């Protein structure tokens, strides 16, 4: 850690271009810490709002970063190792087994491809953690310390992407939003559900959370919330499988609400 490289200052474009453009899913991971206060309604508002990052800011940065980036991955031949020119034996090609060098990042690869999965919403994730670790063992920046500056940058990018992909795929909600995005459907997170029944239910859950005396009480509120999450996740899977994207979109919005209260409860526990 705290390793001081010669270059204390990395150009902005490098820093920004290093990681992926923010997938919508990532925004769901930002959370607001102030919701343990007694002003539940206002704090829960905050929480929602944090999801509503402005449309373009990060993308803008990334975009300009990409333009500046002198070593944009796309410049390289996709089909051979940049270092030894070997043709990859397996896909995805993040790492050359021949010369054991980390390959440049290809934005065209999606998260499912990185993990060798078909583009289905339902994933058997028992192997995901193992695959994640296998990738990290090849790509993690800690392991390329003695390699060239160029390869170290590739490692930083690839490793960050593998982490991001893992995070996105292991969370049902972010996975749902991501897979819709791959279908060209952007989930507008500022859009809210106008179903009064749902809103009432959420309000009631929040009040119950506020009144909960101990972790036992919180756990009692938590389990139906998590059931709802699973239920809507299953509905999403169905809708997505049948290409009913409007319905799928509706499911993600509902999941968003339950996911949020779920996080609120988890934080109080």
């Amino acid at each position: 850690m705290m390793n001081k490289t010669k270059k204390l200052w990395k150009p902005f474009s490098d820093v920004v271009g290093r990681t992926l453009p923010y997938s919508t899913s990532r925004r769901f991971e930002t959370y607001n810490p102030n919701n343990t206060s007694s002003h539940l309604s206002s704090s829960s508002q905050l929480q929602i709002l944090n999801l509503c990052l402005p449309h373009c800011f990060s993308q803008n940065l990334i975009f300009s970063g990409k333009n500046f980036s002198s070593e944009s991955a796309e410049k390289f031949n996709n089909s051979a190792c940049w270092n030894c020119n070997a043709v990859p034996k397996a896909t995805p090609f993040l790492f050359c087994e021949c010369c054991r060098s980390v390959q440049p990042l290809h934005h065209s690869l999606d998260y499912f491809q990185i993990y060798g999965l078909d583009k289905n919403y339902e994933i058997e994730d028992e192997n995901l953690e193992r695959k994640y670790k296998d990738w990290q063992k090849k790509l993690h920046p800690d392991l390329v310390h003695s390699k060239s500056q160029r390869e170290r940058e590739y490692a930083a990018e690839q490793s960050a992407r593998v982490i991001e992909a893992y995070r996105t795929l292991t969370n049902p909600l972010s996975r749902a939003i991501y897979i819709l995005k791959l279908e060209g459907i952007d989930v507008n997170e500022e859009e809210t559900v106008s179903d009064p029944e749902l809103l009432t239910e959420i309000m009631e859950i929040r009040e119950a959370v506020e009144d909960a005396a101990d972790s036992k009480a919180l756990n009692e509120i938590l389990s139906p919330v998590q059931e709802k999450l699973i239920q809507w996740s299953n509905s999403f899977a169905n809708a997505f499988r049948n290409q009913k994207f409007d319905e799928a979109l509706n499911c993600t919005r509902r999941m968003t609400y339950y996911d949020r209260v779920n996080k609120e409860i988890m934080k109080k526990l």
Partner: protein
Amino acid sequence: MDEPAYTVVSDSETTGEEKSSSAFPEIAIGIDIGTSQCSIAIWNGSQVELLKNTRNQKMMRSYVTFKDEVPSGGVSNQLSHEHEILSGAAIFNMKRLIGRVDTDPVVHASKSLPFLVQTLDIGVRPFIAALVNNVWRSTTPEEVLAIFLVELRAMAEMQLKRPIRNVVLTIPVSFSRFQLTRIERACAMAGLHVLRLMPEPTAVALLYAQQQQLIVHENMGSGSEKIALIFNMGAGYSDVALSATAGGVSQIKALAGSAIGGEDLLQNMMRHLLPDFESRFSNHGMNEIKSMGLLRVATQDAIHKLSTQTAVQIDVNLGNGSKVSKLVNREEFEEVNQKIFEKCENLIIQCLHDAKVEIDDITDVILVGGGSYIPKLRNLVKGICKKEELYNVINPLEAAVCGAALEGAVASGISDPFGNLDLLTIQVTPLGIGIRADGNNFVPIIPRNTTMPARKDLVFTTVRDNQIEALVTVYEGEGEKVEENHLLGYFKITGIPPAPKGVPEINVCIDIDASNVLRVLAGVILPGCPHPAIPVMEIRLPTVDDGHGWCAEALHRTYGSTIDLETVQKKI
């Protein structure tokens, strides 16, 4: 034998970074600087080896005595009696003091140590001094640590017969990034380059991962994922980590830590034996120092004995006709320190919660550090984790330094034909990082226990109409209010286009790169404009220096809330 002479370079901010260029990779050594003891280890080509000093000790007391003209530390000093350390001439517990301001409770708790710790309680560094020929001579924790490290380095160089430059150091989980810069500075003063700073329990996790790999290799089986809970209690700090290990790769799931440890157990016990010990000691007279030293040694000894005995008789003559004579049993010790044990329990529970790991899924429970000998702590950890037995193939006092040495070899690019260095630890952020917003609140942008490298952003807005400047104050910690967190730095965004309050979108992005370098990027956009309104600002943190405790206050005094930020508010 002639020892190579080293001098500590001056304690200045500008420690020139030289490039390490050698034909063959230099294996970095692992150092575990404990609050009370220190050890050093290296990968010798086939395994980790702990280095011993000339007195054949693997564990060296962490202190520096200023008695003679040349200060000497616990590595080389031929100290025969414990009381000499407690004479006021020696500085110890520097790991508890380093990087803390004089309003910190940990600093205040250090006032009853034999050397001088003076506070003004205004948020500057405390005054620390050693008693040399009846004169209080000032020093700093960094200087003391650097002197100590110079001795360690000389010892290692003599044994390894080569210069030592790169080190992996273990650090407490609860250390702020500011404290890390102090550790790095002490290392630089001692001519050492920090390759990695590793949270202590993650070093233990690395050793555990290697041991599990070995078992897998021997059994030719496929290693399934092993979840380990690691609890480490040293003299100064208690830390917890949860790691998930498979195939030599450890993903740290969560970390938790606090500045509680053996020193607190000791002080609580001293207070129990002599309720007015702090006030007796407040003027730091020669006789008081001596009697406190006697009490300290006797109490420490009793605590050690209570790990194997159920009761111990304490008899200590404090001089001036004052004496302590008491039979203390184990229950008494546990009761006196009940709060400490409760805090340990809370740390473990918090870590399990953050890791989202069920107790039944834990494969092994590893207890390390000096505290691991305390029956109460052993039972407490076993109780929470519902385990009959603790993991016992690890030396509790050597585990952290062995892990650091392994990391040193891995990070130096050394490979082992038997796959013993086929290891990787994926770290997480031990503390949340965020900024001040919504009044005096701390708003985390990267929450604690986020896998590194990490990058996250959050949008804020102005609090006043036509507000053209905004103050971004960056903190690290877990407290809800900014003052409960560590200040890392601050900067002003200027040139925000005039607009009604709440309209400009101020995006604050926090980036921790693969080398654990922290940067904050801030940009402003107005809705409807595709491009940032002003150039994006990028700041590398921490930027604060000693005395930063009053920076926040000064900022507040100067600006009030005129250039504050808020999280973006919208209706449901």
